[in-house]
Each structure stands twice: as structure tokens, then as C-alpha cells.
């Protein structure tokens, strides 16, 4: 008696779950299930298509208006370029954004490089040593980057090639806590962002 009830219930259950499976099967597709077969029709032709669009898009940015000499700098990737940068950092005195004669010399050289590679766009990062407060140093770093940018513009470098960003004392180049480290951390640092 009990068994028949059980098996009856069992059958009902099986039917119910089957019905649910069907119902679910109808609703499920949008929920990402492992799609059994990858779409087979015209796989070869469609696979060859996608790579084509990016090429015409990327071309305009690469266009070097002048035939640049094929030297190491011109052929280097951006990362390689920034790792051994031909653009020298501009160093500053404590709590100052004045460009010393030495700093101006470095920037004169940088201006020469930028004239030679007119396709380059650079970001000038302002950095500070750790003695100032984090908050004020944000503004001080910007003043250093701004002074550096203004000087390069005065040398004829187009303003739209020079962006600035201030990192305050967030990213010291030297981890030390002495004047030698501080001196290296008070700088406008050049990063080539496009060429």
C-alpha cells in the first residue's frame, strides 16, 4: 500500500521534474549555459574577417608626418622609450617651482628632442619630496609641472603636446629619507604617451 503510494508519488515526481525540465529548457537559453557546439556555418570566412577593421583605425595615429631617421629612439616602443627616456627630468629646490639654470639646460635639451620627434605627446608629472604634506604637495607638484610646461612652450613646443599631472608625494623615485633622496623626488618627470 505504502509502496504504491510512494511509487505513485515517484512517478508524479518524475513527470513533474520532466515537465519542469521542459519548461526550464524553454526559458533557459538566455542564462549562459555551456553552448554545446560552436556555430559551425561559415566559420572559416567569419574568422578571417574580424581582424581587418582595426587596421585602418590604427593607421592614422602611426602616421609620422616627417620621415624620421630610423634610429633606436624612433623604433622603440613607448614602454622602452620611457624606461630609458631621452627626456631628462627637471629637478627643483625645496618647496619651489623655480627653474634653475641647470634645470633650464635639461629642458632645453628636452625641447630639442621634442622638436626632433614632433609626433610625440608627453605628460609632465609633478613630484614632491615627502617633507611637505600630502595635500599641499598635490598643488605644489602641479605648479612644478606647470612651470616646466610653460618653459617648453616658451621654447616653441606646441602646448597641445604637453599634458601635466601632479602626483604630489605619492610616487617617490627614491625611497630614502635624506636630502639625496628628496632632491631626486622633487622633479618634473617626462612620460611619452604617444609617438
Amino acid at each position, binding site marked *: 500500500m505504502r509502496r504504491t503510494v510512494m511509487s505513485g508519488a515517484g512517478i508524479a515526481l518524475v513527470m513533474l521534474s520532466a515537465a519542469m525540465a521542459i519548461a526550464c529548457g524553454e526559458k533557459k537559453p538566455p542564462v549562459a549555459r555551456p553552448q554545446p557546439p560552436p556555430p559551425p556555418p561559415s566559420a572559416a570566412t567569419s574568422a578571417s574577417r574580424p581582424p581587418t577593421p582595426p587596421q585602418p583605425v590604427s593607421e592614422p595615429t602611426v602616421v609620422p608626418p616627417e620621415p624620421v631617421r630610423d634610429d633606436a629612439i624612433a623604433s622603440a616602443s613607448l614602454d622602452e622609450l620611457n624606461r630609458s627616456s631621452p627626456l631628462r627630468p627637471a629637478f627643483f629646490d625645496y618647496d619651489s617651482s623655480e627653474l634653475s639654470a641647470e634645470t633650464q639646460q635639461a629642458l632645453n635639451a628636452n625641447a630639442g628632442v621634442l622638436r626632433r620627434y614632433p609626433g610625440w605627446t608627453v605628460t609632465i608629472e609633478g613630484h614632491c619630496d615627502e617633507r611637505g604634506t600630502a595635500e*599641499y604637495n598635490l*598643488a605644489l607638484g*602641479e605648479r612644478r609641472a606647470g612651470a616646466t610646461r610653460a618653459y617648453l612652450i616658451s621654447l616653441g613646443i606646441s602646448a597641445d603636446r604637453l599634458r601635466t599631472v601632479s602626483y604630489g608625494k605619492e610616487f617617490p*623615485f627614491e625611497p630614502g629619507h635624506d636630502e639625496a633622496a628628496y632632491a631626486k623626488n622633487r622633479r618634473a618627470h617626462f612620460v611619452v604617451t604617444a609617438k
Partner: protein
Amino acid sequence: MKRTLLVTAAALLVLASLAAQQPPAKTPSPPPQQQPSEVSTTIASDQAGAPPRFAVPEFIALPSEGAAPNARPDAEVADAARTIGRVLWDDLTFEREFALLPRDIHSTVPAATSMLDVPFDRWRELNADGVMVGTVQKTATGVRVEARLFNVRTRQSAFAREYSGSIANARLYAHTIADELHQQQRALRGVARTKLTFNSDRDGERLSGTVETRGAKEIYISDYDGENQRRVTTQRSLNITSTWSPDARSIAYTSYRRGAPQIFVSNIYQGTLEEPTQGSTGQNWLPAWSPDGTRLAFATTRDGNSEIYVMNRDGSNLRRLTTNPAIDVSPTWSPSGTQIAFNSDRTGTPQIWVMGADGLQQRQLTHEPYADRPTWSAAPFNEVAYTARTGPGNDLKILELGTGQVRQLTFGEGSNESPTFAPNGRHLAFMSTRAGKAQIFTVARDGRDLRQVTKSGNNYQPDWSK
């Protein structure tokens, strides 16, 4: 009723004490019970001028609701009972309104098993004026926490609360009891449920897109005591200067995720993000919420050099407040929202200045070698705390605006920066390198009770929720 009659008839001391221990008739059956009516009194010390001495032992873990009275309480409940007692002790110690009996004394007094057998005589021997007795009981839906502060001399309850909810965050019961006890006993706004936000490099993640090895900083939040530290941002970018909206539901901060720094507002409970300075040129930094939460003051270089601006929290209604070639940065609002203190180096060195919220009547407040990051205290204190150069490093100072007096809070223990006041003005959080790395600490406004809040990685620029 019957019982009081009995007591008056018998007039026996022993019986009287027994009766006083009985809570107002409480039948054990219906779960949603009304709070027992409470005789609201404050407990004072019997020595004039001294803070009342309270005992706050661990809470009592009761057998689960419906279990046999002698059943062992659930382990989770026992754990919660221990946690609540300890956290409550910490919270009450933090405000220094009560003199708490040292924890190690608790074990010399037999633990109560309910509200009915509190050993008042023993607490009296230890000179306690009040004793906090709490119970934790598992119910069908979660947990019920009951807390009472008894006057040890009269054996009457001066404070009684009952809470029910999840057992998941036992600390929150303790924080709530602490805040409500401070409010009821001392008319003091406690800070046990307030939170901190700060930025941290603890995850050791590298900033993407740079040649140099630069560590990301992400925004974190935590309880005021440093518990429940949680990460808010996940961009592997430089995210700094986070600050709580007055309703503690949003955090405004500076992020470099777009390259140049922009201001973002993260609505942490909704999980949504706003970008009020979206599309602006220049650098945008250091957002500061107006006390009503509708506006943000911030610093921006969009007009060439760093100036203070104010905008609505959605970026509309932008107004410039400062106009000069010097650096103006680090704005902070007065509690009434009518004034803004800020940092300017227009005299040649960074100093704290103040102006009306309309930008008018700018005047210099400090004459330090170097001062930055003003932060305005809450009423009743009329103070501005700031970072001052005092030697190789920085220290915190507090300027009393009424008298113009300045007092120093730290004295060359590492470098100390970025002060922020607790919403009741009685504590500050700040960054210090005194323990080696940069860490967040809290300290009472008189310089006592230093507590280290963070331990992992470097942590900077705390802000205390309002």
C-alpha cells in the same frame, strides 16, 4: 504588586534586596515584548567631581529560547556575549565619561547567570557605582540582546535596552548600547557607531600603465576602532583623500583612474558611482562635503593654478571662491556651513586661511613655518586642527578660534599628518609614521589615549564620519 506588599509587610533587609533584583514582572512566553518601563536616572559617583565607576563584565549567554533553563547556551551566543561585553568596555573607555573597573577584576566577582542574581554586594566592595548586566539569547529569528545598567547602591535599573536582530555583527550591539548609554547618562553623542575612511597600499597591487613600479592606493572604510576594514575602490589606481558624506552613505574622493585626478562620489550602500568633475580640464582634488551634504568644496587647477571651488554634489552650480596666483588647496567647512578654512601659500609659505562660504572676507589664521590640511571640529568646540612643520617631520596642532590659542597634540613621534575630528569633537584620527610605516591612529583631543587603528600596509589621510 503582591511582592511589594509582601516586602512592606516583612520589612526585612534581605528580602528587600531580593525584591529589588526582580525585574518588573516578565513572563517568559510572547517573543515581541514591550520594553520594561524604565526609571530613567543617572548614576553619579559618591565622590564629588569624580566620574562614576562602572563595572562592565562580559554579557551572559542564556540558553536558546525554548530550550531547557539549564541547557548549555549555543557556542555562537557565548562568543557574542563575550564580544559584546568587551567591545562595550572599550567603547565606554574611549569617551572617558565613566571610570571603568579594570577587566581583570571581573573574574574575582562571581558571574551572574541572569538579571536576577547580580552580586551587587561584591561590586559594591569594589567601589562600583554602577554595573552593566547584559544577556544574549538565541531566538527563532536571530538573537535577543538585553542590557541594563544597575545602580549598585539602590539596585535599581538606570538604563535598560533590548535589541533583536542578527548575530552576525555582535560588535554593533555593543556600539549601539555605548552610544545610547552615553546619550542617556551624560547627554553625550558617542562615536561608537561612526566610521573611518582612509587610503591604503596594503594590497601591494601595481598601478597599471606605468613604466615605474608604482603601488596602487585604494579607499578603505572601517569602524571607528579599526574593526571591519573594507575596501571600497578596486581600480588599481591612485585613489586618495576620501571623505564621508554627512549621512555616512557616500564617500567622495580623488582618483587618478582617468589619468588626471578627478573627484568621484561612491554611494557605498547602493554600489553606484558619480563623477561630478567629469569632463573638466585640469586637476581636481580634495573634496569636502558641506555640512548639509548638498555641496562639495574642492581644489582645482582648471583656471591655471590651484583654487578653491564649490559645486553641487552632481557637479552643477560651480562657483569659484579664491582668485590669486598662489596655491589654494585643502578646503574644510565650518560645522554651520557658513565658512571654509583652507590652505594658501599666498604669503610665501603654506598657511591656514579662512573665508566665508561665498569666498569673501579671506583672512589668515596661522603663522607657522608651514601649515596644511585644516579640519574644523564639531560644536561645542570651535577649533581647527592642522598639520604643522615642527622639525624634520610634521605635528598636529589645534587652533582655538575664539581665543586664537594654539596647542600642540603630537611631539615629533615620527611625522604626523592629516588630522580629522570625530563628530563629537573629542577625538582626532590622523596619519603617523611613529610605528615605522604610515598608519592611522586616533587620539583624544587632549593628546591622551593614543590608539593605532590600522596595521597592514601604509595607510593615509583618514576622515571620520559625521
